[in-house]
């Protein structure tokens, strides 16, 4: 095992071909990064940890959508509704059935997967725009369900949830909850990476690349398209459940169509069909508003603010900047952050002979 990939890619076994982290350096970087992440509660404040937790949670849900959109070539504009279903399901399982939160989270994922299979059923027959509208229906049906199902969601007032607890250990602050999220991120991302190396994973990609050829090769289109919805919903459900026990409050307001579009934004910005890209896209979408907000705070009361008489409208800057960033990204970086990251790595690897 060498530190870097040798020029000319010589892989002599399937095992070598399948490896996720091909070089020694990438493994060192992985372990160092993980160690740094686990040490971060000692180094960072609650705010920064909160951002990391959010990135992790959104990353898991975005990965689910990426499996559906990036790997299977389907479309969903109802992802936030499944995310919300996971959040409410976990809160409900704990409150109604007194199941420990640690078990509620995976159970909520499974429940959401079932709901996803139901709403994914049209995917067996629909494609493109038609499928998009079908998933839009899922968004509205679920949203309305959240607002009315008092027994399940607490109605429009929302539901207060309990912090994550395992044995005597309670993760009710950022410093501790980060470990829960990191554990889930590792498991879910490894799961997805491995899924893509199996027959089923390759089948999903085949469906995306050319569904007719896939069918000719003996892939059951209806089965794999619906399965993909189930997997995506499972990831959304896990993300939602983690979100519920982090914020300690779930309310229907959060899971609107805009949030669904944001998930699509994460996947596109991160890179369609890239596992790591999902996490990068989530990081981008979580950090961008914070950066813009910090910029707006700097502007507020300053010379530019006074000159342009921005006043209260400065808060709109945040919304506008987020929109602008997405447009710019689509224009200049259509392959996403994952692609840019590969280019950066290649640049340093080939330096100074990049041409």
């Amino acid at each position: 095992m060498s530190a870097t990939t040798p020029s000319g890619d010589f892989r002599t076994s399937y095992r070598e071909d399948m490896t996720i982290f091909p070089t020694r350096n990438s493994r060192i970087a992985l372990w160092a990064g993980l160690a740094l992440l686990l040490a971060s509660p000692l180094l960072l404040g609650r705010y920064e940890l909160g951002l990391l937790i959010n990135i992790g949670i959104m990353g898991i849900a975005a990965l689910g959508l990426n499996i559906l959109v990036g790997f299977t070539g389907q479309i969903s504009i109802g992802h936030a509704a499944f995310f919300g279903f996971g959040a409410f399901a976990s809160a409900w399982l704990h409150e109604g059935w007194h199941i420990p939160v640690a078990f509620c989270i995976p159970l909520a994922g499974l429940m959401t997967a079932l709901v996803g299979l139901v709403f994914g059923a049209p995917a067996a027959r629909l494609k493109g725009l038609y499928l998009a509208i079908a998933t839009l229906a899922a968004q509205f049906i679920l949203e309305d369900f959240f607002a009315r199902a008092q027994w399940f969601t607490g109605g429009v007032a929302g539901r207060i949830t309990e912090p994550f607890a395992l044995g005597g250990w309670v993760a009710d602050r950022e410093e501790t909850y980060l470990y829960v999220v990191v554990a889930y991120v590792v498991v879910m991302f490894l799961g997805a990476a491995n899924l893509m190396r199996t027959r089923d994973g390759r089948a999903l990609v085949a469906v995306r690349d050319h569904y007719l050829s896939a069918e000719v090769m003996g892939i059951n289109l209806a089965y794999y398209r619906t399965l993909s919805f189930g997997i995506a919903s499972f990831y959304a459900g896990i993300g939602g459940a983690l979100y519920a026990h982090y914020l300690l409050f779930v309310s229907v307001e959060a899971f609107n169509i805009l949030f669904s579009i944001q998930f699509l934004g994460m996947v596109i910005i991160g890179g369609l069909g890239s596992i790591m890209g999902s996490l990068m896209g989530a990081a981008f979408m979580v950090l961008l508003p914070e950066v813009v907000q910090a910029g707006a705070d700097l502007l507020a009361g300053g010379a530019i603010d006074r000159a342009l008489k921005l006043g209260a409208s400065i808060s709109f800057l945040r919304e506008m900047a987020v929109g602008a960033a997405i447009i710019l990204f689509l224009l200049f970086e259509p392959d996403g952050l994952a692609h840019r990251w590969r280019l950066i790595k290649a640049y340093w690897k080939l330096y100074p002979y990049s041409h």
Partner: protein
Amino acid sequence: MRMRRIMLGLTAVAALALPAVAQQRIPVGHLMDNSGATSDVGVPYGQGVADTLAWVNASRNGIAGRPLNVLSFDYGYQAPRAVSQYQAWSRERVVAIQGWGTADTEALVRFVTRDRIPFISGSYSAALTDAGGKSGRQGVEAAPYNFFYGPSYSDALRAMLRWAADDWKAKGGQGRPKYVHMGGNHPYPNSPKAAGEALAAELGFEVLPAIVFALTPGDYTAQCLTLKSQGANYAYLGNTAGSNISVLRACQTAGVQVQFLGNVWGMDENAMKAAGAAANGVVFPVRTAVVWGQQAPGMATLQQISRVSDPAGTAYRPVHYLAGACAAMLMVEAMETATANNGQITGERIRDGFYAKQNWVPRGFDGVCNPSTFTADDHRGTLRVGLYRAVVSGDTSQGSVADLMRAGTMKLEPVTTIELERRRELLGW
């Protein structure tokens, strides 16, 4: 000689250090809705709070010589965003928060109780008044750090219903009057629904099924036609001004004859201008003793505050601006009480500052802010509800709100003041 040098050195160090201590600013959070569903009333209220806190810094040199560091955030009426912002603020160690909506305030109750951060909300949900958590009502938990200025939504509605019952008799109405609750399916309009319907039934109203309309402006002709076909006599508008305007206008077009009872956020001078003659006759609670343009000893202070964001001094300030100023001043004075006897400004001491005075009117705000009384287990600051009627007697499309109020085209006319009894069993409801 040596001693003198040491003394001199110590004095020099103290002289350098003192300003640093004095300048240490007090972090305070300010959650606003400037862009969301309730921004129509959130903007003037938020402006009132912001101006008042800036004025306290400028004219009173903050709290005991320490200026306030107000951290404002526009959360767009999205409860989850408020919750995550709350967590971001914990980094700044805010000692108190000026809040806004019902959904987010109720969601944050547990957090502010855990972190001991007094939270002065723009939500007057009765669920926030049960400070000791002794009411035993379902869904109501102890809210020892939640405060607000004014009567709760439920109490304001109870007062309006009492007025409506008298009004029905005075008008010589035959039979049982019909009452209907209108509003979005959202924690804020829902908050006083059960309490209002219960009292209405008790007072002999026939309670009709509630009518739902969204918090955002839209076409509500269907709702008005329902109102008409049901023959409602008194209708409560639970939303904020923006969507209520749509209802008022649609009902005027549909020719609905009904007495509207506005929520405290449901009507103001801007809404009167926008709705025009359709707003004529709406009865709603006003939280201050006077409205802009009227005379009171405290109005001079209010005019100074207004100049913070309007140096020309010409702006007309709607009722919510005044309420925002009073709410901010309660917090400021509670902080001042906390600093008495060289006390630290901690959440707990600020909370106790709210209990320090009976019939509490902030200094310099006499005749503007109504007296409030908070006790350790009852956070119903006041049970006195001043009811006003919006009177629109002409075309409001020309001229500014200030002009229209000055010309008398639009008027806020006092109707009555209802004093409710402080009944223990109604705490938290």
